[in-house]
């Protein structure tokens, strides 16, 4: 056992996957379905993924939009069934023990629509607590505690539709922690936040969730700075495949002194990270594009940005 970069204790396996693969068949019409005609084509957003993530570890999956990060998280959360391969979360088999897997996990997404907008924050959390089998006084105390943790106690009885983007995201974290999960999945947790709010959320994740609660965190991001700041290890993920896994420092050191994580990404994927100009939001939005010069380590033109999206 050792300490994670966030201060948690790293122990035995929390997530294990073996040749995990997901292929989505091309859409078929009713006639094809009835005739059991196989569909032509299809996409494979997760392609033979092997992972071993230890308890207490903050593991980042770093890749561009469309790389398959969300599909991988959804498979590990039992929302999508894999086409091939096996996986265990908190020691439970994804397919045979899906109920036990769901008891062990929390999911934090950026989809603010996943709450009932006309219910208050407290009502939302109490409802979702009941789905985790927590009721009445126990649920109320737990929700109260979590609202305090995410600093939303004062706004607990305000309708969710009146919350700011940052408050909504903190609500998503509170919901993810309702069942005191062993593993917390976070799908691009700072995507819709301004730089200040994103930094605040990262600090909160490090202090409260990792250091205080010692959770295993599986975080997907396309924000290099976030990956570097939060994660004990990152996997560079592109086109459904893991290109390389290691701690940010190890990965950078392997490329030579002065290398950045963006150089690591470029080296393993042939795509380079850049800032997008244009609109105010776009100016801070991270992006990846194929490196026209092919694989290489050149850092020319690599964008540096503050605080994510």
């Amino acid at each position, binding site marked *: 056992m050792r300490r994670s970069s966030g201060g948690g204790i790293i122990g035995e396996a929390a997530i294990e996957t073996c040749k995990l693969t*997901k292929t989505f068949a091309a859409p078929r019409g009713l006639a094809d379905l009835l005739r059991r005609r196989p569909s032509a084509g299809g996409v494979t957003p997760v392609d033979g993924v092997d992972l071993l993530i230890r308890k207490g570890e903050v593991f980042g999956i770093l890749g561009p939009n469309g790389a398959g990060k969300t599909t991988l998280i959804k498979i590990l959360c039992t929302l999508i069934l894999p*086409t091939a391969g096996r996986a265990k979360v908190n020691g439970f088999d994804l397919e045979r023990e899906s109920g036990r897997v*769901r008891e062990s996990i929390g999911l934090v997404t950026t989809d603010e629509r996943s709450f009932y907008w006309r*219910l208050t924050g407290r009502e939302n959390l109490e409802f979702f607590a*009941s789905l985790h089998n927590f009721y009445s006084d126990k649920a109320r105390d737990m929700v109260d505690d979590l609202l305090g943790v995410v600093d939303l106690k004062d706004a607990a009885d305000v309708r969710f539709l009146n919350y700011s983007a940052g408050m909504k995201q903190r609500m998503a974290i509170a919901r993810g922690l309702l*069942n005191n999960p062993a593993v917390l999945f976070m799908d691009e947790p700072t995507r819709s936040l301004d730089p200040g709010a994103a930094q605040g959320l990262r600090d909160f994740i490090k202090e409260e969730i990792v250091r205080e609660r010692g959770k295993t965190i599986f975080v997907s991001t396309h924000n290099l700075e976030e990956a570097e700041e939060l994660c004990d290890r990152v996997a560079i993920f592109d086109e459904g495949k893991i290109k390389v896994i290691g701690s940010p420092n190890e990965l950078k050191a392997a490329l030579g002194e002065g290398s950045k994580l963006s150089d690591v990404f470029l080296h393993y994927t042939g795509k380079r990270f850049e800032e997008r100009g244009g609109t105010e939001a776009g100016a801070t939005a991270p992006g990846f594009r194929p490196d026209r010069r092919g694989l290489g380590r050149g850092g020319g033109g690599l964008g540096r940005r503050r605080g994510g999206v």
Partner: protein
Amino acid sequence: MKVGSMFATYRKALSFVKRSYILQMSYKFEFFLRLFFMFFNILTYYFVAKLIGTAGMKYLEPYGGDYFSFVLIGIAFSGYLMVSLRGFSESVRDEQMMGTLEAMLVTPTDASAIITLSTLWSFIFASFRVLLYLVIGVLLGVSLAGANVLAALIILALTIICFSSIGILSASFIMIFKRGDPINMLFMSTSELFGGVFFPISVLPSWLQTVSHLLPITYSLNGMRHALLQGYSLGELAPEVGTLVLFSALLLPASLLAFRYAVRKAKMEGTLVHY
């Protein structure tokens, strides 16, 4: 089912009802508007019944002879079929569109429980409507003095099981095809015409009555009218009760299997939250 599990289901049911009630009450105007226009519906049939008078006596005799009493029970209890047919598929679709389905499915609560419990409020609201229909009916002269309430409740329970099974089948189609559910269309279009909602099925030519005998709503409304208007005993209601039990025994397991298959298929295709 273990006591602990039953208690958990009960507590969850309360949470779903509370959630739906708060959501419904956040649209108070719509809620009261729906109740208000229900009165117009009843009054329309009241005056139609006055116009018909004793003209349909030959057909209405088995139900006491009064058209208003006949149609009141028909429109009140057919509401359960409508709620079942639409409720389950709409709750799948509503949660998909609101974006809340995924957040619910990542909890230990089973998908079928989520969909069933999401529909509870619609059934409670439908029951409230039935009660209002009956109260207004009594105020307008319908006699329920000799009603066999126990038999009516048994038929109601079987009706809900039967109709819910059809509703779950319908939701299974929505889960896979997203739109164009044939179960809903089939039962929606045939039940009012052949199920005896607005007129006794004896009005239909005998070859069309065959279709009526294939629909659970026919037995449900028949039994309910006999129980409420004429106070038939359970023994006298045995044909209706027996047929509804048979329908339930066939449809309930089939619908649960279909729903499980639909959820698995949607998880396989990654379309669980698509709409």
